[in-house]
C-alpha cells in the first residue's frame, strides 16, 4: 500500500478507532457487496475492509457477483452465523429494501453503502447526493459551452445513462437534466443507454455520434466509461484537449483515477466527486455505534454532499478527490 492510500485509510482508522476506543469490543461484521466492477467500488471495499480489520474486527466478505438473489441468500447466511452488524452494497434499490427488512427482522444493525434502497427510511443509509453532484458538474460545462457559443446556436448534448434499475443512475440523470433545463431552449439532448456496460455504451455511443456528429458537450453517468468514450471520439477527431480545435466539453461522475488523469491532461473538464472516504467512515461509524449502544434497528440517512472537481478548482481541490489521491500514490 502506498503512502497516500495508507494515509487515507489511516485517517479512517483513526476516526473509527477514536470511536471504538470508547470501549467497543471486536465485532463480527458481514460486508456484502454486489461486485467490484469499477474503481469506486474497489476503493470503497478497500477502505471498509482495511479499516475494520485494522481496528481488530472480523470481516466476513460476501461477493454476490451482481446477483440480487444470491446477495439476499448471503445476507441470510451472515445473519445465521450471528454477525454483529452488516454493511451492504446492494445490487439495486429494490433488493436493498428486502435485505434491510431481513436484517432488521433479525435485530442485526445494517448499513447500506452508496447504493440507496428505494425506501431510505430503514437502516443506516449512506448515499451520495447524486442529483446535486451531477448537476454541479454539468453546470460547469453548460456554462462554459454557452459562453463560447453564439447566442442563437442550439447545442448538442449527450448523456450516457447508467442502468435505469440503479437509483444512482436515475439520480445522475436527473441532475444532468436539472442543469440542462436551466437553458432548455439551448440544448438538443441525446440519451445513450449504457446499462453500466462498456460494450453497450460503445455500440450505442457510436450510433448516437453517427446520428449527431456535432457534439458540444457530453456527460457520462460514471467515470469508468471515459475509455469507451475515447474509443468513439478519437477516430472522429473529437478527443481533443482543452484549447485544441474540436474539444468536446465533458463531465463525469465518481471521481476515479482515470477521471483525475484526464482532467489533468485537459481531455475532461469536470467530474462530480463522491466523497468515498466520508461515506466509508459514515457507514462504519453507524454500525459500530449501533453495536456499542445495543441498537438493533438504527435508521438514519447520511448524505454525502460531494462536490465537482473542475478545471477552475483543480489546483485547490485535487487532493479532495479519492481518484486523485490514488493516482498521486502510484
Amino acid at each position, binding site marked *: 500500500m502506498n503512502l497516500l492510500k495508507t494515509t487515507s485509510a489511516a485517517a479512517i482508522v483513526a476516526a473509527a478507532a477514536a470511536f471504538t476506543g470508547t470501549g467497543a469490543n471486536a465485532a463480527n461484521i458481514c460486508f456484502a457487496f454486489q*461486485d*467490484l*466492477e*469499477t*474503481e469506486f*467500488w*474497489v476503493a470503497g*471495499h478497500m477502505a471498509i475492509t482495511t479499516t475494520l480489520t485494522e481496528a481488530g474486527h472480523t470481516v466476513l466478505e460476501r*461477493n454476490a*457477483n*451482481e446477483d440480487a438473489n444470491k446477495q439476499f441468500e448471503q445476507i441470510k447466511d451472515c445473519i445465521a452465523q450471528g454477525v454483529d452488524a452488516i454493511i451492504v452494497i446492494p445490487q439495486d434499490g429494490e433488493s436493498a429494501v428486502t435485505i434491510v427488512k431481513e436484517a432488521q427482522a433479525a435485530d442485526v444493525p445494517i448499513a447500506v453503502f452508496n447504493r440507496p434502497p428505494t425506501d431510505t427510511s430503514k437502516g443506516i443509509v449512506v448515499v451520495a447526493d447524486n442529483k446535486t453532484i451531477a448537476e454541479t458538474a454539468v453546470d460547469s460545462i453548460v456554462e462554459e459551452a454557452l459562453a463560447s457559443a453564439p447566442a442563437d446556436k442550439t447545442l448538442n448534448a449527450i448523456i450516457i*445513462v447508467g442502468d*435505469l434499475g440503479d437509483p444512482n443512475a436515475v439520480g445522475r440523470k436527473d441532475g444532468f437534466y436539472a442543469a440542462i433545463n436551466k437553458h432548455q431552449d439551448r440544448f438538443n439532448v*441525446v*440519451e*445513450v*443507454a449504457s446499462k*453500466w*456496460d*462498456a*460494450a453497450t455504451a*460503445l*455500440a*450505442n455511443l*457510436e*450510433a*448516437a455520434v*453517427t*446520428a449527431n456528429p456535432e457534439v458540444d458537450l457530453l456527460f457520462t453517468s460514471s467515470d*469508468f466509461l471515459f*475509455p*469507451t468514450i475515447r*474509443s468513439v471520439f*478519437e*477516430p472522429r477527431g473529437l478527443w481533443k484537449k482543452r484549447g485544441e480545435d474540436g474539444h468536446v466539453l465533458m463531465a463525469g461522475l465518481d471521481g476515479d483515477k482515470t477521471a483525475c488523469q484526464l482532467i489533468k491532461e485537459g481531455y475532461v473538464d469536470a467530474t462530480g466527486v463522491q466523497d468515498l472516504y466520508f461515506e466509508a467512515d459514515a457507514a462504519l461509524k453507524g454500525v459500530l455505534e449501533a453495536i456499542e449502544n445495543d441498537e438493533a434497528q438504527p435508521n438514519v440517512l447520511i448524505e454525502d454532499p460531494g462536490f465537482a472537481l473542475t478545471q477552475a478548482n483543480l489546483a485547490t481541490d485535487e487532493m479532495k478527490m479519492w481518484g486523485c489521491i490514488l493516482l498521486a500514490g502510484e
Partner: protein
Amino acid sequence: MIKSLEKASDFLFRNATYVIFACVLLYYGLQAPSFLSVESLSNIVKQASFIGIAAIGMTFVLLTAGIDLSVGAVMFLAPLIAGYAMRDLGVPVPVGLLVAVLTGVLLGAINAILIVRLKVVPFITTLATLFLFRGFGTWLTSSQQFDFPEEIRRFGLSTVLGVPTPLIVFAIVALAAHVVLAHTAFGRQVYAFGNSPEGARKAGLSAEWIQARVFIICSACAALSGFMLIAQIGRLDVAFGEGSEFDVIAAAVLGGASLFGGIGSAFGAVVGATLIQTVKLGLVFTGVNLYLQPIMLGLIIFVAVLVDGVREKRLLALLKRTIRPV
C-alpha cells in the same frame, strides 16, 4: 393470380428474416434518413461483428442440438489471459490474439471433455463453466479493471483499405465457417449429427468427436469476439461479456438456426447478429425513450422469431404437399 400470390407469400416466408431486416431498415430509414448512410450501416455491421463472430461459433453448437452458455465468460477470460501475456510478457498484439484464441480452444476443450467424456448435458456443463470461467477471471483481476497496452487499441481501431479491422475479421470468420459447414465432410457430419444423432452413429460417425469439435470452435470464436471487442476499448472490467450469451444465442436463432439441431448456417448467424444490432442502434438513432428501448427490442425480436416459427410451419406444409400432391 392465386398461384402468383402463393408464390409471393412462399418467397416471403422462405426469406422471412431478410424481409424483417428490410422492414426494420426501411422503418428506421424513414424515421431518420441518415440511418441508411454508409457510415451508419458500416457502424452497425462493425458493432454486429463482435456478437456475430461468437454467433457463428454458437451456430456450430446449435446445429448439433447443443447449447453453450459459457460464451460470455469465455469472451471475458480469454482476452484477459491474452492481456496478461501482452502486458507482463510484452508479446505483440497478433501473438496476444493467438493467445486469446488458444485460450478459447482450451476452455472449449474443457466443455467438450465434460460433455463428451463425462456425458453431462451441454446446458448444465456450460452453465457450470460460465461461473467457473468468470470466477477464475474475477479471481485473477481481484475484481479490478484491467488496462491493456495501448497497442491493442491501435489494432482495434485500425482499418485495411478503409474497412475497419473487426469487419474484416468478421468476414473471414463467416467465410471460413461457411466453407467448413457447406463444403467439408466435417460440415456434413455436423448437420447429419444434428438431424439425427442416432442415425449419424449408425452411419459410423464419431458423435463424440463431432460434439467436441463444435464446442471447441464455439469457444474459439467467443474468445476471438471478446478480443476484438476489447481491442476497441482497451480496458476490461469484471462485468465484461456478462449476459452476452443471450445476445449470441438470439443472433444465431434469428439467423435461422434451430435449437433442435440440424438447421442453420454461418451466413444466417451474420444476418441474425446484424439484425439485432440494427434494431438496437436504430432505437438509439431515432431517439426512442430509454425506458421503452428494451420493450421495443423485445417486441421486434419476438415478432422476428414468431414469423420464423410460422415460416417453419409453412415450409413443412409445403414439403408435405410436395410428397402428396393434391
